[in-house]
């Protein structure tokens, strides 16, 4: 599993992922971080991962969660979800698999499909609401923030 070539390829993937841009806003799971950890382990098997604390006691939030049961999709308890998140996948890597992963990442980074299936301004500046995506993008990147009046305009007119 951990021969020279797979390690070298995994290191390349790690370096590739490091160069990818950060999330514009914070989400519940960070793709870059999680995948970095995953491939760093392949690139360097001796590396120690952070130990997760074992805690069997129930906290107040756990009990609250049990009572409501609807905080997460269809009654999956938070403790179960946490277990999923902490589980470490066992994967057998080889060269072809890693090459495929790298090429897939590469084509995602290069916008292959956005260029291949170009939907033109018909969808990027839709007729019904031409500023829709531009406003959304400006808000996320912090270029221009919405103020009270533009917000109310959206509430009343929908645009």
């Amino acid at each position: 599993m951990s021969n020279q070539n797979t390690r070298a390829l995994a290191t390349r993937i790690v370096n590739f992922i490091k160069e990818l841009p950060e999330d514009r806003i914070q989400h519940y799971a960070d793709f870059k971080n999680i995948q970095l950890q995953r491939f760093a382990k392949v690139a360097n098997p001796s590396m120690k991962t952070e130990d997760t604390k074992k805690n069997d006691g129930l906290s107040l939030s756990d009990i609250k969660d049990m009572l409501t049961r609807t905080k997460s999709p269809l009654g999956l308890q938070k403790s179960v979800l946490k277990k999923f998140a902490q589980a470490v996948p066992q994967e057998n890597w080889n060269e072809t698999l890693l090459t495929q992963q790298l090429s897939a990442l590469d084509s995602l980074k290069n916008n292959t499909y956005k260029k291949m299936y170009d939907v033109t301004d018909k969808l990027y500046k839709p007729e019904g609401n031409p500023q829709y995506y531009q406003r959304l993008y400006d808000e996320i990147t912090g270029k221009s923030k919405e103020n009270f009046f533009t917000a109310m305009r959206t509430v009343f007119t929908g645009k």
Partner: protein
Amino acid sequence: MLRNIVTQNSKVCFQKQAFDRSIKNVYSLRYQSFKKSPEEQVKESKLDSEPIEGNLNKYRKIKKNDKSQPEDLKLRENDLKKAFKPTSFQTSVASFLIKYLGVNVDRVRSGPIAGSYYYKECSDQGLIYEDDVKLSKGCEFFYNDLKLPKTFSQWYQIHILHVWILFVRMRAMPFDIGKNYQKKIIDRTFEELERKLKEEMNVRSGRFIDNYLKEFNSQLRGCIFAYDEGFYTDDYTLAKALWRNLFGGRKNVDFVHLEACVRYVRSQLYVLSKMSDRDFALGNFKFVPADQFVRPLSPEEYEEMKKEVIAKYEKIDNDPNTKPTEKSKLRYDN
């Protein structure tokens, strides 16, 4: 119209893009896979990327002819047209209303098209029926190839991905009509969700159902925002949005699967972008199955297709015998 764009195992080649020398062999691999459909692309990867939690096969399969199922969801497409054929009296009343009382046909049409036809189209992509031995094309792609768990919330995620794809096209329609289409498809989604939770998932408490619906609503908002961001910016952001929502943030995700998904979404949007407003509003769109390759049209082919569509609708509009119920004010030349 779809037939023009979709070609199975097409032999069209793509011009190689400028490539980086350091990963030359990677690109040669990529170059070959350009001609493949998303499903073939997924099958190429042999990585065992099943969800860590094991297969959650808890999803209660429903019978297609279940009593509780609404009429329009039970029937196949061909039967649907027969079953809901209006009588001549109904047609003449409708014609009177449209002609003399100024009822907007396009607004009225949004109900049956978006609320029934497009709803069914979206929901069927991930729905497993008990009495169908063979899975539908969409199910095969999502559950067998992408190895997603067969659960209720997974079905919902697949459903809203497709709803969002239609949303993008609806925004490009005239504002009030497009908004109406969006409203109708979401109304129907939540109506059905409530029914499904009650009758198929056996949730008895009304308060719990309300809580679930609120949860589903917030998921919907999050999804639409994340997909919109990905759609407008780049493939990588779209892939991240898909990973968080469709794949549930799974750690051991296969990047080839993500890539195929991005390709699937973008190809559907491409087909939609080549459709005229009128065509879309009349319900002539069907999702392209994942095992087919969408070939981008050359400008000449697009022009030709446009001419065909324009000729078709001009003929209908200029024909004095066309019923007012079949007319529409939407554009057909874009």
